[in-house]
């Protein structure tokens, strides 16, 4: 793993969760009179004050359109927006800012690739390869283009522990495969996929790989050059940044060969009624006035993470995961869904006779926010023959005390339903 992003002088400072918690105003909120115990971080994370302040500061001091005016505010806004692109570039170690495209989020990033690369390269009889643990956002965009182009969508199965069957992947990928699109970390199971091995195998057959990194960038160090992925997608709001902003990274030569996604302002260099010349990268893929404020907010969120250090965050979250796994395993009748050896801080679980919705309502009255349902991964639920799970997902600001609150609250649920 690459450790370039860590600020050297901070390396020896211990991880101080109480100090971090103070940076997140929402964490002092009460729910039903109880301290908020927010364990729904795989759905969305909270925002530190620096991100929240950056949004109002942008609107209060430099709001204007980017890449347009020659006036001062426009220049300042453009600098801030492009500065954020550079921050993202450094964060995932892309080789150039041209490879960083601002989107609305992971979903739009994947749709962009499906509708441009997919439309251009997929022909009848070709295959697209995904896995059995994809979020709907990495299934449906491919289904749409596959249906249109009469292309076959193939799915790599997973085992009882929620791990990808790599040997099945090796069997399914072939000369008809035109792209592999795979989730880095599963949002419902927490499984960390062996993406490096997947990419190596795919590249040995000349097949490009898209990584859905929505659950990855906030938990582990991502170096797109080291991974050698062709595309990498993630969302701002899952990495302590604002909603409505996300990233598509693409290798320059891939992005250059692809047609534009949407047409409009900013993505052109010359327009006549006869012909339009498209703008250079990354603007070719950013039609219309972009989400300037939230792009700047995302940059601030990344700065915040970098100041703490992603390795420190990963180590702390691993500690939380181990503690929570141990605590929850002690609860009678609780079955954890997703027991991958390589796992991040997500625990999905079920009880034989207690429905997740009832659990969710009870926990809420103790201030505990968890996700209940299918987590936009219905095929995963089907795989395990369950309608839904309760999912606790931890972030860097969660504590062992909060794990105890969850465990105690679950015990109360058992008293009522058990």
């Amino acid at each position, binding site marked *: 793993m690459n450790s370039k992003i860590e600020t050297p002088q901070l390396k020896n400072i211990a991880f101080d969760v109480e100090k971090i918690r103070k940076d997140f105003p929402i964490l002092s909120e009460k729910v*039903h009179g109880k301290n908020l115990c927010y364990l729904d971080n795989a759905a969305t994370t909270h925002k530190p004050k620096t991100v929240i302040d950056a949004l109002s500061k942008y609107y209060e001091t430099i709001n204007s359109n980017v890449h347009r005016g020659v006036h001062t505010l426009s220049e300042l806004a453009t600098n801030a927006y492009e500065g954020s692109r550079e921050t993202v570039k450094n964060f995932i170690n892309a080789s150039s800012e041209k490879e960083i495209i601002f989107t609305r989020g992971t979903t739009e990033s994947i749709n962009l690739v499906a509708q441009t690369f997919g439309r251009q390269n997929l022909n009848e009889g070709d295959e697209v390869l995904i896995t059995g643990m994809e979020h709907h956002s990495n299934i449906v965009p491919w289904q749409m283009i596959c249906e249109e182009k009469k292309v076959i969508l193939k799915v790599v199965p997973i085992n009882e522990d929620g791990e990808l069957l790599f040997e099945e992947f090796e069997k399914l990928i072939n000369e008809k495969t035109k792209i592999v699109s795979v989730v880095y970390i599963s949002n419902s199971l927490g499984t960390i996929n062996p993406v490096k091995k997947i990419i190596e195998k795919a590249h040995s057959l000349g097949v490009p790989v898209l990584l859905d990194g929505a659950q990855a960038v906030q938990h582990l160090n991502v170096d797109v050059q080291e991974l050698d992925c062709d595309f990498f997608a993630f969302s701002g709001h899952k990495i302590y940044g604002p909603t409505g902003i996300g990233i598509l990274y693409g290798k320059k030569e891939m992005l250059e060969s692809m047609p534009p996604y949407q047409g409009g302002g900013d993505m052109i260099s010359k327009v006549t009624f006869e012909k339009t010349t498209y703008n250079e990268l990354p603007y070719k893929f950013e039609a219309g006035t972009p989400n300037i404020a939230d792009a700047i907010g995302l940059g601030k969120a990344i700065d915040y993470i970098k100041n703490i250090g992603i390795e420190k965050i990963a180590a702390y979250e691993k500690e939380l995961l181990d503690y929570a796994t141990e605590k929850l395993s002690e609860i009678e009748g609780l079955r954890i869904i997703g027991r991958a050896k390589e796992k991040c801080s997500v625990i999905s679980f079920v009880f034989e006779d*207690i*429905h*997740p*919705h*009832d659990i969710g*309502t*009870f926990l809420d*009255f103790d201030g505990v926010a968890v996700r*209940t*349902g*299918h987590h936009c991964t*219905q095929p995963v*639920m089907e795989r395990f023959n369950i*309608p*839904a799970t309760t999912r606790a997902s931890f972030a860097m600001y969660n504590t062992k005390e909060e794990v105890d609150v969850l465990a105690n609250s679950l015990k*109360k649920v058992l008293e*009522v*339903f058990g």
Partner: protein
Amino acid sequence: MDNELRELYQQVILDHNKSPRNFRVIEHPSHQAEGYNPLCGDRIDVFVNVKDGVIEDISFQGKGCAISKASASLMSSIVKGKPVEEAEKLFAKFKDLITGKLGENPDLEEIGKLAVLAGVKEFPARVKCASLAWHTMINAINEEKNLVTTE
């Protein structure tokens, strides 16, 4: 336990959840339908035997939360033996009850034991749980061929 929570999960509801009434399959029913709640992935099958406009027998199967299971159980026991028309009227009243449209002091005589589900009105996210079985039954009777969803 918090009062609102206690109101929602009354003992009657917990009992019906644990031992649901009419939780079985009717072989060769005159009507049947599958209900689906896309929010939580719950599915329910409702089987009905209607003769001369009267619900002679009704049953259900499926997986769901305590609210949806208890609601299906209560529904099946209350509509059995009633004319279809009456069941439809009951559903209308029940919908008003769980969405809080009956006001502060509603006349609950007509809906009888369904009143235990009144607590749902404080939990808008759970209205669909309580109404899934009813929607499915009505669609079964109306012979809607399509899968019922609460969306």
